[in-house]
C-alpha cells in the first residue's frame, strides 16, 4: 500500500520506506551508515547519545535520526520529499561536537581497557571525532559497581547510553539496573550494588558500547585481534544457540553470541557464554584403566585392550548409555558398534524420559519452533521452567508477552518467569477438564488460533511420563493446536544431545532394556557416553567404560576411561529441541590424547574385529543421511511440516498420577552438565545465587 510508504530523499537518492520506520532505519535502507551508541534495534529508543544526528534540510537543528519517525516528517514547502543528508560539513561538525562531549569525561585508558579493539566509542572517535582533545579541565570519576561474578565494571568509562538499563528491564525482564542521580553525578548501578540475577546478564557486556561493562572472567585475557574466531553451536541447553568461539593457541578464551534470528536472536545465556573456563579444567586428556582400584593413565592400545576384554561379555549383559551432550556422530558410531556386537541395551535418556521409542519424531520435538512463540496467541507450559531450561527462549516468550499480548499459562512449579502467567496447578491433574475450565488462560487456549503447548523433558522422566505425554498431546488435539499450518504441540528438551541421539535411534533395541534397568547392576559391562547425570551408584560389579571429556561423576565410577573431545574441539552435528540440525566447528584441538567420540568407537570396532564401515566423519555423515533424511538439511526446523504425524493420538498404556506435583525442572541452572561443573565461573554464579559468600563478592 503506497499510503503506508513515505518518500524521502537521502543523500540525493529518492527512497520509499514504511511510515513506521525511524529516520535511522530509512538512512540505512538508503545505504548510509549512521553512528550510534544508545540506539539498539532490539531495545526501546532512548535518544540520549545524540551520535546519530543527520541533517534535514530546512530544519533548524540536526535531527537525532533514531528518535525521528519517518511518518512524522513533513514534505518540503514545494511538496518534494524531505531532503536528508547523512554526511557533509554540517553533519560532520554536529557529530564531532557530540563526540567531543562524550569524550570530555571518558578516560583515555584504551591501552588497559578490555573493550579496546572492539569498542564502538573507539571506532567512532576515529571515524567522527576530532584529532585532539581541547578539554583541559578535570574529568569526572565514578565509583565502580558490583554487578556480580560475571560483569566487571569500570564506571568512569560509562557514557550513560542506558542500553544495559533497557536490556535488563525490557529483554531480561528483571529491573535491576538503573541510572541514579543526575547530570554530572549520574551513575549506572544495580540496586545497592546487588548482583544481577538474570540468566542473560552477560549480554549487557556485548551491549555496552564502551568498556564500562566488560566480562569479568575474561578480564585482561586477550585482545580481540589475537583471537581465532570460529562460528559454532552452543550445547549448554537444547536451543542450539549460534555462538562464536574465540580461541588463542589451544585455549578457548571466550564465547560470544552470533545472530540467529530463528534461535537466539542475538542473546546468549550466561551458562553458554561463561562456560569456557570449564573447557580447560577437569579434562580427561589421556586414557585410564583402573588397576588395583586406582585409575592409572595408560596408552590407547592398553585402554582398548581392556575395553575389548570388558566387551567380550555376552551381548545381553552389555549396555550403552548416551549422555546429555553427546554429538550425533558419536551416538551413531556407538550405536553401530553396539548393534554389531549384538547389544540391544542402548538408551540415550539417562534421566529416563519416556519418549522417542515409537519412531514418531514429532512427538519429541518442539514442533511450534522457538520463533513460533511470536506467532502464537496462547502458550501453555507444562512442567517447564523456560527461564532455566532455555533462558534465551524465555526472553523471546517475554517479548511475545510484552508486544503480542501472548497469554501464558503454567502447570508446574510456580516460579518467576519475568512475565505474568496464570498458574493453573502444580500437578498433571490440572490438565483434566482444563478445556472447559472457567479461567482466562483456558479461555485464551479455546479461542487461540495458534495455541502452543509445551511439555518439559523433566516431567516425562516420571514413571507416568508416557501417560503425561499422551495426556498433553490429547489436550493439544482437543484445543486444535494442530492444524494444517500450525503444529502447536512440543517438547522442550534441556539436553543438547538428546534429539540427535533419538534421531539416530539410540533407544533400546528389540528386547533391549532402558536406562533404569541397565543401572540396576545386572549388567557385566556398561558403556557410558558422557552420561554423568545417570545414577551410577547401584552398578556394583558392573565394569564401566566411560567415554567423555570431563572428569565428573561418570569418570569417577569408571573402570576404563576413553577421553573424547568437547564441543569446541570438533566438527560435530547437534540437533536442537526444534529438530534443527546444526554443526559445531573445531576451534581448538582436543586436549592431550583425547579423540573425537566417533573416532574412538571406530578404532574400538577395529580392535573388536567388528570394523565400522566409515573411515572419516564425512563418510559417517553420509551414512547418517542415508539412514535418516532429517540429517540432510542443516539449520532448518521442520516446524509445521510434521503436522500429519501429530494428528494421530498417542497410544500408550498406563495412567497419569494426577495428584503428584511436578518438581523443579532444573535444580541449579549453572551446574547442569560436566562442563559447567568444571567451570569456576559457574561455581561462583551458583554459590552467589545461593547467597553464599564468594571469592569475587568478598573483594
Amino acid at each position, binding site marked *: 500500500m503506497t499510503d503506508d510508504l513515505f518518500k524521502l530523499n537521502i543523500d540525493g537518492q529518492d527512497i520509499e520506506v514504511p511510515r513506521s520506520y525511524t529516520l535511522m532505519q530509512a538512512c540505512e535502507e538508503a545505504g548510509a551508515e549512521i553512528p550510534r551508541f544508545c540506539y539498539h534495534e532490539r531495545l526501546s529508543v532512548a535518544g540520549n547519545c545524540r551520535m546519530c544526528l543527520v541533517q534535514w534540510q530546512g530544519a533548524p537543528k540536526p535531527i537525532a535520526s533514531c528518535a525521528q519517525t519517518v511518518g512524522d516528517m513533513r514534505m518540503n514547502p514545494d511538496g518534494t520529499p524531505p531532503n536528508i543528508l547523512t554526511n557533509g560539513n554540517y553533519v560532520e561538525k554536529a557529530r564531532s561536537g557530540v563526540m567531543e562531549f562524550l569524550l570530555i569525561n571518558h578516560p583515555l585508558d584504551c591501552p588497559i581497557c578490555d573493550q579496546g579493539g572492539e569498542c564502538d566509542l573507539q571506532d567512532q572517535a576515529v571515524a567522527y571525532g576530532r584529532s585532539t582533545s581541547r578539554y583541559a579541565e578535570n574529568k569526572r570519576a565514578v565509583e565502580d559497581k558490583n554487578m556480580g561474578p560475571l560483569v566487571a565494571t569500570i564506571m568512569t568509562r560509562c557514557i550513560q547510553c542506558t542500553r544495559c538499563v533497557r536490556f535488563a528491564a525490557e529483554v531480561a525482564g528483571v529491573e535491576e539496573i538503573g541510572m541514579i*542521580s543526575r547530570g554530572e553525578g549520574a551513575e549506572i548501578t544495580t540496586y545497592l550494588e546487588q548482583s544481577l540475577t538474570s540468566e542473560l546478564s552477560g549480554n549487557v557486556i556485548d551491549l555496552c558500547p564502551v568498556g564500562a561493562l566488560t566480562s569479568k572472567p575474561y578480564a585482561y585475557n586477550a585482545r580481540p585481534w589475537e583471537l581465532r574466531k570460529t562460528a559454532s553451536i552452543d550445547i549448554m541447553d537444547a536451543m542450539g544457540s549460534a555462538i562464536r568461539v574465540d580461541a588463542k593457541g589451544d585455549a578457548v578464551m571466550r564465547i560470544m553470541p552470533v545472530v540467529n534470528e530463528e534461535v537466539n536472536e542475538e542473546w546468549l545465556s550466561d551458562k553458554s557464554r561463561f562456560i569456557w573456563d570449564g573447557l580447560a579444567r577437569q579434562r580427561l586428556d589421556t586414557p585410564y584403566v583402573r588397576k588395583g582400584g586406582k585409575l592409572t593413565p595408560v596408552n590407547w592400545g592398553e585402554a582398548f585392550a581392556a575395553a575389548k576384554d570388558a566387551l567380550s561379555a555376552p551381548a545381553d549383559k552389555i549396555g550403552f548409555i548416551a549422555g546429555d551432550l553427546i554429538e550425533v556422530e558419536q551416538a551413531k558410531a556407538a550405536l553401530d558398534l553396539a548393534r554389531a556386537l549384538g547389544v540391544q541395551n542402548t538408551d540415550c535418556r539417562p534421566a529416563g524420559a519416556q519418549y522417542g521409542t515409537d519412531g514418531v519424531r514429532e512427538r519429541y520435538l518442539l514442533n511450534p519452533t522457538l520463533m513460533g512463540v511470536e506467532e502464537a496467541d496462547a502458550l501453555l507450559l507444562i512442567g517447564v521452567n523456560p527461564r532455566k531450561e532455555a533462558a534465551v527462549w524465555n526472553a523471546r516468550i517475554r517479548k511475545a508477552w510484552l508486544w503480542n499480548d501472548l497469554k501464558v499459562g503454567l502447570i508446574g512449579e510456580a516460579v518467576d518467569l519475568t512475565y505474568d502467567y496464570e498458574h493453573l496447578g502444580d500437578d498433571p491433574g490440572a490438565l483434566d477438564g482444563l478445556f472447559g475450565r472457567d479461567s482466562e488462560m483456558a479461555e485464551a487456549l479455546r479461542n487461540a488460533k495458534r495455541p502452543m503447548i509445551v511439555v518439559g523433558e523433566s516431567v516425562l522422566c516420571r514413571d507416568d511420563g508416557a501417560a503425561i505425554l499422551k495426556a498433553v498431546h490429547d489436550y493439544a488435539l482437543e484445543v486444535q493446536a494442530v492444524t494444517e499450518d500450525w503444529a502447536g504441540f512440543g517438547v522442550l528438551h534441556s539436553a543438547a544431545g538428546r534429539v540427535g541421539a533419538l534421531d539416530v535411534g539410540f533407544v533400546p533395541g528389540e528386547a533391549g532394556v532402558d536406562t533404569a534397568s541397565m543401572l540396576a547392576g545386572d549388567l557385566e559391562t556398561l558403556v557410558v557416553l558422557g552420561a554423568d547425570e545417570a545414577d551410577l551408584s547401584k552398578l556394583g560389579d558392573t565394569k564401566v567404560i566411560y567415554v567423555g571429556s570431563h572428569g565428573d561423576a561418570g569418570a569417577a565410577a569408571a573402570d576404563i576411561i576413553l577421553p573424547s573431545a568437547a564441543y569446541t574441539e570438533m566438527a560435530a552435528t547437534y540437533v536442537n529441541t526444534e529438530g534443527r540440525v546444526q554443526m559445531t566447528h573445531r576451534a581448538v584441538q582436543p586436549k592431550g590424547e583425547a579423540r573425537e567420540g566417533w573416532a574412538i568407537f571406530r578404532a574400538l570396532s577395529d580392535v573388536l574385529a567388528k570394523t565400522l564401515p566409515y573411515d572419516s566423519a564425512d563418510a559417517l555423515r553420509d551414512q547418517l543421511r542415508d539412514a535418516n533424511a532429517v540429517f540432510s538439511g542443516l539449520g532448518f526446523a521442520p516446524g509445521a511440516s510434521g503436522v500429519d504425524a501429530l494428528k494421530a493420538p498417542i497410544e500408550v498404556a498406563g495412567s497419569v498420577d494426577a495428584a503428584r506435583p511436578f518438581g523443579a525442572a532444573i535444580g541449579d541452572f549453572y551446574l547442569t552438565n560436566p562442563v559447567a561443573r568444571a567451570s569456576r565461573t559457574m561455581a561462583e554464579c551458583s554459590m552467589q545465587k545461593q547467597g553464599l559468600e564468594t571469592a569475587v563478592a568478598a573483594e
Partner: protein
Amino acid sequence: MALRRFDIEAGGDSFAFLPETEPTIAFWLAKYPDDKKRSGVIPLLWLAQKDNAGWLSEPAMREVADRLEMPYIRVYEVATFYTMFRLQPVGKHHIQLCGTTPCMLRGANDLKTVCEAKIGPKMHVTDDGRLSWEEVECLGACVNAPMVQINDYYYEDLTPDSLTEILAKLQNGADVKPGTFIDRLNSAPEGGAKSLVEAELYDGSRSKAVKTLPNLPSDAPAPAEPKTPAPAKKTLIETTKPAATGEKPEALKVAAGEEDDLKRIKGIGPVNETALNALGFYKFSQVAAWTPVNIAWVENELSFPGRVEREDWIAQAKTLAAGEETAFSKRVDAGEVESSKDEGED
C-alpha cells in the same frame, strides 16, 4: 553535585508509615489507576520523608516501592534524582539556605558562615539533633533575599544576626514565626508603601467618568455621557424592571421553621427562593394559589417572564402542598440536585 547515597546504617532495618499518613496515601493512590500506581512515587516518597524525621531511609524507600509494586531500582532512581529527597539524617529543624545569585548578592554567604559556625558543616546534625543545614538552589523568594527555608516555611530578609537569633531560638525549643524579618508586609517595600500612597486614590474622589478612549479613531463619535452612575452592586432581583404588571398575590409572614422548602419545586434554586421569601412567599400553598395575574406580577419581580408557566410551578406546588412528592422533589430530598441544596451545606 555531591554523590548521593543512602545512609544505610542510620536507616535501620524497618520503616512504617504513621497511621495518620494512611489517608493521605490513599488520597494520592486514588488519583491513579491500579496498574499505573507508580505515578504516585513522588508524593509517597515525600510522605515517607515526612514520616521519617525529614529524610528518606533505605527501608522507607523500599516500603514505598513495595506499596507501589515497583522494582526497588526504579524508586532508587527517583529518590536520587531529586535533591529534595534527603538520603541522610537531618536535624529536627533542617535549614535549606538559598545560595543562588540574588540571595548570594544580598548576603547569603554571610548566612552560610553563621550556619557553619552555629551548626557545623553541611548536612551535619547538631549533637542535640535539632539543627542541620544545606545549601540549595533558588527557592523562588528572590524579592526577599537572602532567605532560608526551615522545614516547610520561609524565613526571609535575614541578616547574620537575625539568623543567629532564629537558630538560637530553635535550638532552645522555641517557635519562630516564619516570614520576613524586616519591617515590611510580605514582599511590599520596607517601611510601608513608597508609591500610590495618596489618600484620594482610595476614597473615590479621583474616579471620573471616561470621556475619551485611548486609541479611538479621530472621526469616531465621542462616547455618550452616562446618564446615571452605574449601580454599585448588581444582583438578579435588583435589575431595572419594567413598570409593574399584574397583581401582587397575598404575602405571608411565617415563623422561622414553618416555611416550606421552595427549592423542592423544579425551577426554584437558592437565589429564587431568597427572592420569593423576600416578597413574602414561604409556603407551597401560596404558590399553588397564584392566579395568572399573580404569576405575571411574580415573573416581573423575578425578571423571568414565562418561567412559572414553562416549569409548571403551580402544579408542582399543588402536589407538594398536598403533602405528595414530585419526581424532582424526590431527587432534591435525596440530595442529588446540587442547585437545590441549602447554601453552605457543603
